[in-house]
């Protein structure tokens, strides 16, 4: 079990510093947005400064944090009372513990690198200041998400990163595709948010609190009373996690999100925000540990997603979309890991960290390639670029090797144990999950090798082509502000895995937050066999990729005469088709028909009373003929009635 926070510490010292972690980037956003055009020249430096300051602060907090076992490693500090109504006492508070600090370092560290990279990448953009403002907003929200000590604070950060993601995907807002992708991302995330919100409501209903501490300390009691409630909470949380992390069935927004500038894809849609779902599940380990059904669903979603992501990634020609689907599938691995339950949460976080390094590096590499290729993303137009961009090629290669799980690089240390843990689930479940993870490893090797071939090797197809705006391609290496972060991330891709797993460093450090780590021991096959099997699958993927792509020239036009497998993969395993046919099209039809119904039916019925009265009076006024004698007659008739009535009353 995890530790509970010893006590609420006042917002001084380390807890006070945590507040500044969130505030610094937020202040940066405010300065850059309110400052307006005056700050166009210097704004990006403000943004960079704030993130670097936050990183330094985070590092100091990390260094001064008591190691596990020595005093409290989980510290809650409530800053102020946010929404107090009778029993509901929502505090605005932060929690500093190994898990949140790990994320703080990842977010501010990778964030700072990507800020540096963006200075070069966005150099020519007139709205660079705004871009940095939004990036800072993202960093602030993401830090709030991981630092919050209650589900409501987490939810605030959760929606905040959604907003930042919306703004950044749609940053080039004059492109209709970017605007649509941004909207799609936000709306699909909102679907997930409904799940998270309902989970919070259910917690309050059952336990009367929304703080981590209160919920985790009482969830056991709830589990004894009604296990179904815990499963419901877990599944609702999972829905939220699926939305944010682009997991099936809410995966379709993530590839579209590549419409945003590449640094955004690297930071938000690869390294940090999309992993928030993994964070959520790891954070809620006390809840998920109590519900086997909930965990099973998490693993199933993870396994399905990692396969869907891999398959879709195999057929894409857009370099960023390949990487996006790769992200989807790698997060599937993380879900698989955190779903496998007590003891292996740390593996999910480990893969999250190493993935943060190599995927961010890969995206930055892709950005560097696009930067040299007139912002073209179609790999069929690349080819032979390794000669023109040596640094990009080198860093990209290390990221690639790490991603496919090449031995002794980061990905190997993090992915291999997950596959082992999947087999360790035992029985049919173990075979299915492990098999899916193993197959995924092979497919990953295939599509990444395909990407490498098409981009860096083979014939330089771009020499005979022009980009859409008619310019010739002049591939060149990117400036130092872009290559330096790539190099740093490449180093991370090489060494991070080894460093973090050495002596179970990360697992031990995280144990106060997510529980003790226990090495998975597959019973159905030996761990060595799994490792060997994984390596064989990877080798197979690479070889098949060479057979399909590497040994023959790549056609610039996308072949249309292809087998159903490729068509399925190109259709993203049906993701968007399902969304379109089930939701978008009926939704638009419903909207249009309701608008008509509103005008033609509802409004008519309500105003009908008025028009009915008017029609009645139009009839009745016809009795006013203007002939005095007819009036006299009606007067006489009326008098007679009155007299008769009087007589009847009198004598009856």
């Amino acid at each position: 079990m995890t530790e509970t926070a010893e006590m609420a510490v006042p917002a001084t010292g380390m807890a006070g510093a945590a507040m500044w972690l969130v505030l610094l980037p937020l202040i940066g956003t405010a300065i850059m947005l309110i400052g307006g055009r005056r700050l166009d020249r210097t704004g990006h430096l403000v943004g960079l400064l704030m993130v670097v300051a936050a990183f330094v602060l985070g590092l100091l907090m990390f260094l001064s944090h008591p190691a596990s076992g020595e005093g409290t490693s989980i510290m809650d500090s409530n800053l102020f009372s946010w929404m107090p109504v009778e029993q509901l006492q929502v505090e605005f508070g932060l929690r500093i513990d190994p898990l949140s600090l790990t994320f703080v370092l990842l977010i501010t560290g990778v964030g700072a690198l990507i800020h540096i990279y963006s200075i070069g990448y966005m150099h020519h953009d007139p709205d660079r200041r705004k871009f940095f403002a939004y990036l800072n907003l993202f960093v602030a929200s993401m830090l709030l998400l991981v630092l919050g000590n209650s589900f409501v604070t987490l939810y605030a950060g959760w929606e905040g990163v959604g907003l930042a993601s919306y703004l950044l995907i749609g940053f080039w807002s004059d492109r209709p595709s970017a605007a649509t992708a941004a909207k799609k991302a936000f709306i699909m995330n909102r679907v997930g948010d409904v799940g998270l919100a309902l989970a919070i409501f259910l917690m309050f209903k059952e336990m009367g609190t929304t703080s981590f501490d209160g919920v985790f300390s009482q969830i056991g009691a709830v589990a004894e009373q009604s296990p179904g409630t815990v499963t419901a909470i877990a599944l609702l949380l999972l829905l939220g996690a699926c939305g944010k992390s682009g997991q099936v069935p809410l995966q379709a927004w993530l590839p579209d999100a590549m419409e945003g500038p590449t640094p955004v894809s690297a930071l938000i849609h690869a390294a940090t925000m999309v992993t928030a779902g993994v964070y959520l599940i790891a954070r809620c380990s006390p809840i998920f540990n109590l519900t086997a059904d909930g965990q099973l669903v998490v693993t199933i979603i993870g396994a399905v997603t990692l396969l869907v992501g891999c398959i879709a990634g195999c057929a894409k020609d857009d370099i960023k979309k390949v990487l996006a689907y790769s992200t989807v599938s790698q997060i599937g691995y993380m879900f698989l890991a955190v779903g496998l339950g007590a003891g292996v949460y740390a593996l999910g976080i480990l893969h999250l960290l190493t993935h943060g390094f190599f995927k961010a590096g890969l995206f930055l590499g892709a950005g560097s390639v696009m930067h040299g290729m007139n912002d073209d993303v179609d790999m069929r137009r690349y080819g032979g670029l390794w000669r023109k961009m040596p640094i990009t090629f080198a860093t990209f290669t290390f990221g690639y090797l790490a991603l496919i799980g090449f031995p002794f690089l980061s990905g190997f240390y993090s992915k291999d144990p997950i596959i082992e843990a999947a087999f360790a689930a035992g029985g049919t479940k173990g075979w299915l999950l492990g098999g899916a993870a193993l197959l995924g490893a092979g497919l990953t090797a295939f599509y990444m090798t395909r990407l490498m071939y098409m981009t860096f090797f083979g014939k330089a197809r771009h020499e005979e082509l022009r980009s859409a705006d008619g310019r010739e391609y002049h591939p060149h290496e990117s400036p130092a502000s872009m290559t330096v972060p790539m190099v740093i991330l490449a180093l991370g891709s090489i060494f991070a895995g080894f460093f973090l797993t050495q002596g179970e460093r990360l697992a031990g450090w995280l144990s106060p937050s997510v529980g003790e780590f226990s090495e998975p021991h597959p019973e159905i096959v030996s761990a060595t066999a799994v490792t060997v099997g994984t390596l064989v699958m990877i080798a197979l993927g690479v070889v098949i990729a060479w057979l399909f792509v590497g040994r023959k020239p790549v056609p610039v036009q996308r072949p249309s005469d292809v087998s159903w497998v490729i068509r399925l993969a190109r259709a993203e395993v049906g993701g968007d088709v399902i969304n379109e046919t089930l939701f978008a099209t009926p939704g638009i039809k419903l909207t249009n028909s309701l608008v008509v119904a509103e005008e033609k039916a509802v409004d008519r019925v309500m105003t009908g009373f008025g028009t009915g009265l008017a029609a009645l009076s139009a009839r009745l006024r016809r009795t006013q003929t203007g002939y005095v004698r007819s009036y006299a007659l009606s007067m006489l008739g009326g008098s007679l009635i009155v007299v008769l009535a009087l007589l009847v009353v009198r004598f009856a």
Partner: protein
Amino acid sequence: MNPDYYLILSALLFGIGAVGVLVRRNAIVVFMCVELMLNAVNLSFVTFSRINGNLDGVVMAFFVMVVAAAEVVVGLAIIMSIFRSRRSASIDDANLLKY
């Protein structure tokens, strides 16, 4: 003395007046019929005054006569002006005030 005869006479006069108002078109005749009705009412007022032995009904009859006189003045003036503008004393011709 049997007051019933007076009341029957009053009812007869009133009925003749009412029928006259309803069936005749000439404004002057209608007017005279209205007068007939008023006087029928006057007759019953006076009769009841006699029956009850106090003067309330008589006073009422005076009021009616005053009102009738005023009405004749105004009414004849209106009929005259209508006749002048339309060259007709038929009340069915003056039906503009409708709907």
